């Protein structure tokens, strides 16, 4: 008898694995032990582990770097020319594209979704079969201002339906199990600095694997207001002096072990000082009100805008969106909550950037590891699918749909999943070339084989 299979369990395990790894700071995870090998990909565990460069990948990195180099690096990077910024927002679990933009104008929609079919709402201007999910008022507003590009069916052919594997593909920018660096990490390896870990920043408890580099350091913080240090019954001036001492102990000793500990302490000190303006006690004050929520996402975006306004040298930033998208059951409630907070927060972030005069420097990419099955399951939910919906947000996007909605009659694959009409690797290639201005071939495997949609106006 085999282990009972449970999709949601698979998601939580994949999530835990990512978490554990980034805490250990050892690079991208190997394929999850104990998980069935993804059918049809020819993947084996061996490729993950044998090719693992764990020790060489600097997730956080920089522990061999001296204090002075680091300080100068941050300062130099901050005073250099302003770089374009990409913010990656991940809808974890496989967001249901057919609810995000529901094909109410497709005659098969109600048949496939007798319980879940949405009705009414605002029509999508570029395809009158599609309707915006009612929770997406924020994105819809930005779309009407030509600040959103919609990808109604983005993915790749022969989509893998494992959360873990498909997410890995998106993170590394290729349908390759063996790649151990993220696509943004490889970009940072080309253009980044050896002494500026803020160039690749996860606003999360752990490092986003898409940011995993092999050469330059990157950082992960739970939020700019989550890097606090406390000592009981030490306060005021004494506390300040205590914290300022962190980076001064064991300065440049001859012993390699002490040097590592001293260097990391110096980096801690540096990071702490940089983030002081964003600690919650100081309040992140900005021109815009963000949604109130127990979820840290809106505050993370608020903090991000504040960090950019303060001139911190950020370049690639990754966040996980709030909400549960692995909706095998009771989809309507979960999906609405997640989409609402995500969309409202992104709208506030965009307005914040506009008010601070930073909007032209920032592009937001919203993605999920796959969409969901066209036919609903029996539990008011949907199972793992193939292509899903993606968005690009910012003042510089074209605002023109990329790919098309393929329709439910002819647009489903043999498993009943939506076929992709745009490829995520083509999207990455366009972002690299049109947004960052680098040759995609240097970052993405087989970049030449993907059509690059026009994404930046």
């Amino acid at each position: 008898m085999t282990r009972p299979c449970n999709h949601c369990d698979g998601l939580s395990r994949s999530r835990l694995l990512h978490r554990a790894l980034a805490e250990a700071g050892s690079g991208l995870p190997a394929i999850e032990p104990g998980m069935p090998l993804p059918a049809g990909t020819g993947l084996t565990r061996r490729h993950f582990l044998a090719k693992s460069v764990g020790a060489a990948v600097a997730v956080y990195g920089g522990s061999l770097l001296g204090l002075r180099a680091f300080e100068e690096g941050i300062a130099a990077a901050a005073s250099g020319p302003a770089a374009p910024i990409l913010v990656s927002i991940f809808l974890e679990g496989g967001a249901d594209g057919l609810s995000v933009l529901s094909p109410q104008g497709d005659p098969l929609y109600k048949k496939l979704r007798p319980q879940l079919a949405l009705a009414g709402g605002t029509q999508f201007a570029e395809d009158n079969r599609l309707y915006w999910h009612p929770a997406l008022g924020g994105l819809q507003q930005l779309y009407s201002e030509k600040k959103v590009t919609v990808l109604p069916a983005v993915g790749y052919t022969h989509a893998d339906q494992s959360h873990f594997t498909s997410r890995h593909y998106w993170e590394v920018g290729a349908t390759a199990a063996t790649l151990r660096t993220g696509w943004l990490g490889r970009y940072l390896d080309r253009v980044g600095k050896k002494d500026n870990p803020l160039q690749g920043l996860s606003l999360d408890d752990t490092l986003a694997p898409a940011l995993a580099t092999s050469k330059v350091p990157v950082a992960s913080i739970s939020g700019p207001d989550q890097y606090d240090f406390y000592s009981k019954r030490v306060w005021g001036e004494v506390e300040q002096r205590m914290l300022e001492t962190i980076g001064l102990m064991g300065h440049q000793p001859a012993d390699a072990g002490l040097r590592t500990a001293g260097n990391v302490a110096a980096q801690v000190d540096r990071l702490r000082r940089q983030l002081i303006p964003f600690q919650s006690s100081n309040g992140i004050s900005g021109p815009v009100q963000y949604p109130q929520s127990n979820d840290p996402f809106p505050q993370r975006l608020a903090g991000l805008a504040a960090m950019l306004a303060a001139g911190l040298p950020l370049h690639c930033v990754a966040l996980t969106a709030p909400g549960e998208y692995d909706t095998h059951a009771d989809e309507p409630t979960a999906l609405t909550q997640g989409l609402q907070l995500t969309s409202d927060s992104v709208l506030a972030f965009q307005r914040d950037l506009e008010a601070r005069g930073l909007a032209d420097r920032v592009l937001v990419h919203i993605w999920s590891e796959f969409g969901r099955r066209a036919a609903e399951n029996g539990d008011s939910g949907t199972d793992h699918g193939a292509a899903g919906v993606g968005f690009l947000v910012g003042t510089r996007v074209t605002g023109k749909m990329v790919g098309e909605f393929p329709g439910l009659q002819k647009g489903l694959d043999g498993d009943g999943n939506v076929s992709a009409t745009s490829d995520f690797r083509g999207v990455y290639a366009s972002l690299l070339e049109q947004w960052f201005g680098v040759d995609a071939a240097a970052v993405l495997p087989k970049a030449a084989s993907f059509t690059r949609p026009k994404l930046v106006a």
Partner: protein
Amino acid sequence: MWRGTFGAAQAERLLWRAGFGPRPREAQKLARLGLEGAVHKLTHPAREHLVGPRPHDENGRPLAPFDAWGHDHVWWLDRMVRTSRPLVERMTLIWHDWFATSNNGVGSQRLMLNQNQLFRRHGLGSFHDLLLDVTEDPAMLLWLNGSDNSKDSPNENYAREMMELFTLGADRGYTEGDVRQQARALTGFRNSWSQNSGPVNFRYDPQSHDPGVKTIFHHRGRFTWKDSCRLCVTHPDHPSFFVRKLWSYFIPEAPDHATQRALERLYKSSKYEVRPVVAAILRHPALYKGPRLVKPPVVYNAGLLRRIRRGIDTTAWTWLGSMAGQQLFYPPNVAGWDDTRWLDTATWRGRWWIAQYVLDRQALDPDRAYQPYDAGKLLDHACRFWHNPPLGRDTHHALHTFAHRALGDAKGASWKREQYPVMVQNALRQLIAVSPELQAA
């Protein structure tokens, strides 16, 4: 063999590498035995007795390590804090990393703790016996699909890791063909699934075993799982893998060629016994002359508790351990933790919070406590609190400067002159605990 001085400083380093650091005055006591005596004491411990208060959670209730989330971590941390056999416990931690099994895949704290007992039992014994027991251990059977591996549907997961991670090293002395053949030899383990208790009834079922002839490392035979283990341990590339990996847990710089070869010979001539190899590593000059080793987070945590003789009285250590990069029973993957990269800006903060939790019940109250208005005395007092860990000149200077300036801030007001020394004392204890000298030993 180290021929230099074996004083309290060397004994302290030995206790950090071979255990969880000294309790008060333990290093001085060990130093009196001399290096040979000290290593013998560690590698030939008497029956274990646990020293110190019994563990409990924050509400005073006994731990429930089989059932309650996080209690597994603190249960083991308690063993690290209270054991009289630190090397056995440290070896248990090494085997947990070597045969890294995560409860994320196993889903049973009971099976994980049973495996933990297995590691403890074999702490310093025969690696061959250890490998045999690990191979049929239920947690491992679940983790690497050993009980999904049957004659009709082979699963290569365990076979591959057994060679790649446990005995030979990646791409060393085996082929893809050997992986497939080993998987066949390893068939036969099964378990059942119960609605209520999950995986049950782990057994060896000859019906599931592939009885055919296999070719493994150019040997032919009707091999079984026991042959699988034997073939790995007796493989000519095994001793070099074993020695290099074991060494790395104790000494950060790789052994020189002659040492490597000598340890391999020792391992082979002792018929794959762990104890003599560990003893030789613990006597090696590189341990005493070479650079310090960054302490694994749980070693750091257990060491601070041992130093002030505090037992387990909270389960906070579990999430604090996770924050510092090491939650026991949840290694990041089958390759274990990356022991060369414990410290980064996130995990360092985890260590700060561990130190804070170690200290919080002893934080002095500025309204009630008295501390001298004298930077030098405050620093001496704080060092004594931690039983005088060896601090380098830079650290000592930074701490003294801190105390001096903080007291300077108090000049203008009499209430500050009373209260600031107390706060400075609290702060010095915290800073010493996170100083480089206490992070690496």
